[in-house]
């Protein structure tokens, strides 16, 4: 069953150690590539936690605080960070699983995870339905008869609910989890290939991406159009994350840390920043040559535009340079809230979507002034951190009650990828 045996102590690296210390216990003991690197890289948790906060802020409409989020200063946004790190952790967790326990077991666990995400998505959909039904029953204003048309689907719940369960009907801001479900569902064969030959796997991913662009493939949506995040394009970032987790990071590390890469990244980020400014100050747009605009636009979020991917890579290059893996601040209490959130990403993502509903509701019902926006933004993040702390505490308690059994990585694999 075990194709690439890891040293026996690889299994020991689990649960508590991963939270408190950047353990690289057996990094140098792995007998052969492509071994799954051991020890959790806290940077992943940190940046995923931050991405979850940014996604929350971006999901509250008309929120001035969301001016701090990275989407306003360049092409890519928190979604890229989230998808990349999700790919990385999925490969990290299930790659080990596939090595230790075989393809079938690991695949089953990945699909179980996809199922969990699906259930979470449907749960959020129910909350959304409740909100919209409330608004339909209580809000009337002659100015907005058109916008209230969004509520028409309540008149045919049979169609709407079925389309939602088929992941075709996706309310506003509920597009990330369906993407994640498809990425996970398609992951087992990709992971298998990644463990056999990472280069071929990455090439296959790039080919699918190119194919998707060339033939404009996407999944259909309801009532019309296509998916907001095209899984066949966004898989590139997910697989790239997975590839990095399975040894790719070491391979491109020297390149990413080179001076050339650094300066390229800086120049690219500055250019992207300047271009972004023309979106907010349209009068600056005259300084962008017409041929350049025509070449550049539209910067396609649905299909993960190459410019967005490059922007993410540039950000990652700078991050690698300034945030080393053994950065002492990673274990400091200041970073702990974000890291905690990043370690329970599914739960915290869902909390974020739910809290953004509540936050917007409070803004409409009570006040939508700037002070209220700040309060809601801060309270929401505090609630997310509290939720993450609660989940950690609970998992610890559970872990203590039933100490290590035959399936040592259950918690890590089930809860964190």
């Amino acid at each position, binding site marked *: 069953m075990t194709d690439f045996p890891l040293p026996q102590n690889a299994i020991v690296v689990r649960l508590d150690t991963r939270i408190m210390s950047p353990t690289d216990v057996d990094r140098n003991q792995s007998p052969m590539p492509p071994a799954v690197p051991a020890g959790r890289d806290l940077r992943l948790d940190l940046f995923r936690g931050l991405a979850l906060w940014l996604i929350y802020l971006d999901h509250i409409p008309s929120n001035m605080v969301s001016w701090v989020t990275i989407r306003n200063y360049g092409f890519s946004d928190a979604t890229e960070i989230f998808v990349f790190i999700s790919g990385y952790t999925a490969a990290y967790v299930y790659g080990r699983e596939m090595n230790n326990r075989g393809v079938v077991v690991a695949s089953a666990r990945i699909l179980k995870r996809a199922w969990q995400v699906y259930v979470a998505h449907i749960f959020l959909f129910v909350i959304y339905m409740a909100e919209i039904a409330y608004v339909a029953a209580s809000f009337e204003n002659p100015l907005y008869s058109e916008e209230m048309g969004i509520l028409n689907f309540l008149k045919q719940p049979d169609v709407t609910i079925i389309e939602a369960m088929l992941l075709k009907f996706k309310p506003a801001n509920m597009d990330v989890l369906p993407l994640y479900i498809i990425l996970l569902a398609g992951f087992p064969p990709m992971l298998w290939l990644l463990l056999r030959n990472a280069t071929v796997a990455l090439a296959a991913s790039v080919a699918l991406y190119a194919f998707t662009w060339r033939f404009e493939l996407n999944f259909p949506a309801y009532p019309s159009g296509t998916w907001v995040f095209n899984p066949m394009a966004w898989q590139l970032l997910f697989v790239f994350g997975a590839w990095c987790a399975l040894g790719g990071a070491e391979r491109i590390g020297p390149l990413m840390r080179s001076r050339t890469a650094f300066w390229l990244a800086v120049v690219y980020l500055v250019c992207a920043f300047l271009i972004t400014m023309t979106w907010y100050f349209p009068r600056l747009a005259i300084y962008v040559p017409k041929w350049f605009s025509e070449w550049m636009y*539209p910067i396609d979020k649905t299909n993960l535009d190459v410019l967005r991917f490059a922007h993410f890579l540039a950000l990652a290059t700078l991050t690698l340079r300034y945030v080393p893996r053994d950065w002492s601040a990673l274990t400091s209490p200041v970073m702990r809230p974000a890291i905690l959130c990043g370690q329970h990403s599914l739960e915290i993502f869902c909390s974020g979507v739910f809290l953004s509903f509540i936050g917007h509701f409070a803004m409409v019902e009570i006040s939508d002034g700037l002070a209220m926006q700040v309060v809601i933004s801060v309270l929401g993040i505090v609630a997310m951190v509290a939720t993450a702390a609660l989940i950690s505490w609970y998992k610890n308690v559970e872990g203590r009650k039933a100490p290590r059994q035959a399936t040592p990585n259950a918690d890590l694999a089930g809860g964190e990828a």
Partner: protein
Amino acid sequence: MRMLIAGLCAAALAGPLAGPGRAADDAACYVAGSLVHADFPLPRVAAAIDRKHVTVVVVGSASSTLPGADGAAKAYPARLQESLTRRLGDATVKVVTRTKARDTASEMVKTLRQVLSEDKPDLVIWQTGTVDAMLGVDPDEFQTALGAGLDLLRAGNADAVFVNMQYSPRTDSMISLGAYIDAIRFVALQREIPLFDRLAVMKDWNEMGVFDLSTATKKIDVAEKVHDCIGRMLGRLVVDGAMLAKTNVTGSGNADVTTNKDNH
């Protein structure tokens, strides 16, 4: 920052003050005045003004109308007609409304074809975006439809002004407008079409406490005032666009021409 602070104060005062007694006078409308400017000239309107006969057609969906017996007279197209008549003095102004409740941009392109042959407009005010966003029409398709419509208008010798979505705080979290806002803005810039940013203007009113847009009400007074303001500000934008065309002909391309003589 100034607006933020003012918005904060306004929001705090909004409850007690935003009653029907607050008249939508010019000053109230033009709280958001800085958000409306003719970025591009409207040469065909300028020519029509010289001929003393201006025909404007409003093509749009339900948010260009108001319900009720009085609706047509109180909605922004009628207010635009009044504003233009007042501003243009001796020219005859006719504003025709061609709205259909649930039309997407690509359905409106068909309407445009009809409008061009039947109404012979000098200017088409094209209000769109909300329906496409609610249906989740592919933003690329939406953008293509906008381009196709503008091609038709150019061929039919009519100027165009875009009007984007309303700001609707209640449904803000339920309709993803982002991609469609960007598409309209992009096409407007690329094709040099003035955009009346209704969304930004209404958001500003709401923030400044000029109009409270999140209250549930059956009364139509606030809606009428909102439309009145939109009509007036559109009127100013159209006249500015025409002036811009004239100054461009004489060689000084000043994008900041404003004629604030709406002393009503």
